[in-house]
């Protein structure tokens, strides 16, 4: 099909990059935002704007709250569909878990309930969930959408397309294509070492766009490659469900054998038993970690087979000081507090996996590395965006001569995916501040604002990109840049108006989650204005070489260096 290896790689890079680039943009942008997902949550949920707390006393604070958790309505609905009828009256309680990181002021608590009447799945279950203020034990209002960890973060790995895990598969395909685009890009890039530090903004638009595409791809190549690869391995259970299909007998046998060998019961016994003091277990776990020269806080606590004689409590250490996520679990017998097992150090294979997973999921405490991650993510966005721009620039003159609309459509989709996406993210923040506090299903409304504004941005992009078919620059870019600036400033202003936390006050008391958000929004607005002004100059039909974009705009995907 192709006359040379390089040509085949060029074809792969161009066409798969074009088709999946739109998805990759979403994964990279919202992935970059997810680095600070909990901070975005603080901005979106003013009631949670306090300092991170360690996990409070289980016996005094958590246990009564756990006992009050009931299954979520959405989960019950989904379970009814899977079962094909009504659910049993009483759903037995199986597990409790509580989870916190060093960045969370609030604590997430989950309960799992068994659904016994699904003929296809004996392990059918539903969950209930609450978020609490650990200082007081107060349960936070249910319908506060965690815009960072509950919306942007799942968007980046599942596109919120839950049906048959379709979104996961699409993102997975995009990740595979990213890996292939990196490999094929290296093959195509003839002077990859000579042009390592090359960026020529003063040259013709095609050259400067390609330079920017190459540099954001090559300079952060380890980042892009490892993040795409680790993202795929994290969801390997979805993409390669061998344990649920061909290897189910082996997987199950192993799980049961492991539970037996470790003394951790796989199933409840049916005999009720009281629970000993979990606080004492936490103290013992901390003592053991300190004895192994890794003192730490509790990151994850799980109670298996609640109220049963086989019940056990697993206490995991929060991995804030290293890349691997949580680990060093200590398992206690729930009825007596006796230590059943201290998890042995992981095998070499498991260590590699923990490293890759922890690298991607970032529960560690390291602000510089987090900002480096944001930089890497935004460089990825710029790489993809400049890829689209180069594609259009290379072809639009030819297409306009041929009377073809292809470039116009690619450009309109590029506007939608670059500036349109930023607009949608800003719109949900603005909606978050504007919507009435007591509005029922407030979180659903916020999400509608997100998707609705993205669609409006798409419509605007299509409408305002006609000049591309004539080989010129679309005004859609500039107009959406102005809108971005307006919405970003509006978000900051609304935060002040609705919560009283203006930038000077948050900076003065050093409350970085909110101050950081407001500052980032203002920087975003500044870059958008700078980009809009350059685009206006460029649009005035100058045939001169490309205007040099702002240095910082390099790292912001709103930039669109065009002549």
């Amino acid at each position, binding site marked *: 099909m192709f006359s040379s290896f390089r040509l*085949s*790689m060029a074809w792969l890079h161009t066409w798969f990059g074009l088709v999946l680039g739109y998805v990759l943009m979403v994964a990279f942008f919202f992935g970059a935002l997810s680095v600070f997902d909990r901070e975005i949550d603080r901005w979106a949920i003013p009631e949670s704007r306090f300092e991170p707390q360690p996990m409070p006393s289980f016996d005094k604070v958590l246990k009564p709250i756990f006992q009050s958790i009931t299954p979520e309505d959405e989960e019950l609905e989904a379970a009814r569909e899977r079962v094909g009828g009504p659910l049993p009256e009483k759903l037995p309680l199986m597990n409790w878990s509580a989870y916190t990181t060093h960045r969370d002021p609030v604590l997430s608590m989950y309960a799992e309930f068994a659904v016994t009447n699904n003929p296809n799945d004996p392990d059918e279950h539903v969950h209930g969930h609450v978020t609490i203020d650990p200082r007081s034990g107060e349960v936070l209002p249910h319908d506060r959408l965690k815009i960072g960890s509950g919306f942007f973060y799942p968007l980046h790995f599942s596109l919120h397309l839950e049906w048959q895990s379709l979104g996961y598969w699409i993102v997975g395909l995009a990740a595979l294509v990213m890996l292939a685009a990196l490999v094929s890009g290296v093959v195509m890039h003839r002077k990859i070492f000579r042009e390592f530090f090359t960026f020529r903004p003063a040259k013709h638009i095609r050259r400067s766009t390609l330079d920017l595409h190459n540099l954001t791809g090559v300079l952060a190549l380890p980042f892009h490659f490892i993040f795409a*690869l680790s993202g795929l391995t994290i969801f390997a259970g979805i993409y*390669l469900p*061998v344990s649920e299909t*061909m290897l189910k007998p*082996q*997987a199950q046998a192993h799980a049961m054998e492991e539970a037996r060998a470790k003394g951790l019961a796989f199933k409840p016994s049916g005999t009720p038993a009281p629970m000993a003091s979990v606080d004492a277990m936490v103290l013992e776990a901390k003592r053991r970690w300190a004895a192994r020269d890794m003192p730490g806080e509790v990151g994850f606590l799980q109670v298996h087979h609640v109220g049963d004689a086989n019940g056990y409590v697993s206490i995991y250490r929060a991995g804030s000081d290293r890349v691997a996520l949580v680990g060093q679990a200590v398992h206690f017998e729930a009825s007596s507090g006796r230590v059943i097992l201290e998890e042995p150090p992981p*095998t070499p294979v498991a260590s590699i996996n923990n490293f890759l997973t922890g690298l991607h999921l970032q529960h560690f405490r390291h602000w510089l590395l987090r900002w480096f991650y944001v930089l890497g993510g935004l460089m990825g966005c710029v790489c993809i965006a400049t890829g689209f721009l180069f594609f259009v620039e290379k072809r639009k003159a030819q297409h306009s001569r041929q009377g073809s609309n292809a470039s116009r459509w690619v450009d309109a989709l590029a506007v939608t995916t670059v500036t349109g996406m930023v607009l949608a993210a800003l719109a949900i923040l603005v909606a978050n501040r504007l919507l009435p506090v007591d509005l029922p299903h407030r979180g659903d409304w916020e999400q509608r604002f997100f998707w609705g504004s993205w669609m409006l941005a798409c419509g605007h992009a299509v409408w305002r990109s006609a000049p591309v078919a004539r080989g010129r620059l679309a005004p859609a870019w500039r107009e959406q840049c102005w809108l971005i600036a307006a919405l970003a400033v509006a978000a900051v202003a609304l935060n002040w108006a609705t919560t009283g936390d203006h930038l000077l006050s948050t900076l003065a008391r050093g409350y970085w989650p909110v101050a950081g958000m407001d500052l980032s929004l203002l920087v975003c607005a500044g870059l958008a204005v700078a980009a809009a002004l350059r685009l206006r100059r460029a649009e005035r039909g100058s045939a001169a070489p490309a205007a040099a974009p702002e240095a910082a705009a390099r790292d912001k995907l709103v930039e669109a260096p065009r002549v």
Partner: protein
Amino acid sequence: MNAARIASRVAASLLGGYAFVWGFVTLGIALGLAVGMDYDDARTLCNLLAFLVFLSCFCWAFAHASLARVWGVLAGGGLLMTGAAWWLLGTTAL
């Protein structure tokens, strides 16, 4: 380069590639179990390698000239490896 051949090559790269990786993982785990590896370790190791294998298959599907051979190696190889895994798991009661 007609549309049908392009479509076939894309299908080979994705579907054939997936079949190959499925075979690789299942056979890999089966072999791992056969030499006494822990199930979790075997599965994790294969998962770690799987996407690098997929990447290689995917790129090779476009780089290699003969479309027929691409289908043969990827889909055929995948089937063979899956079959071998099935046999190993079934007969040796792993």
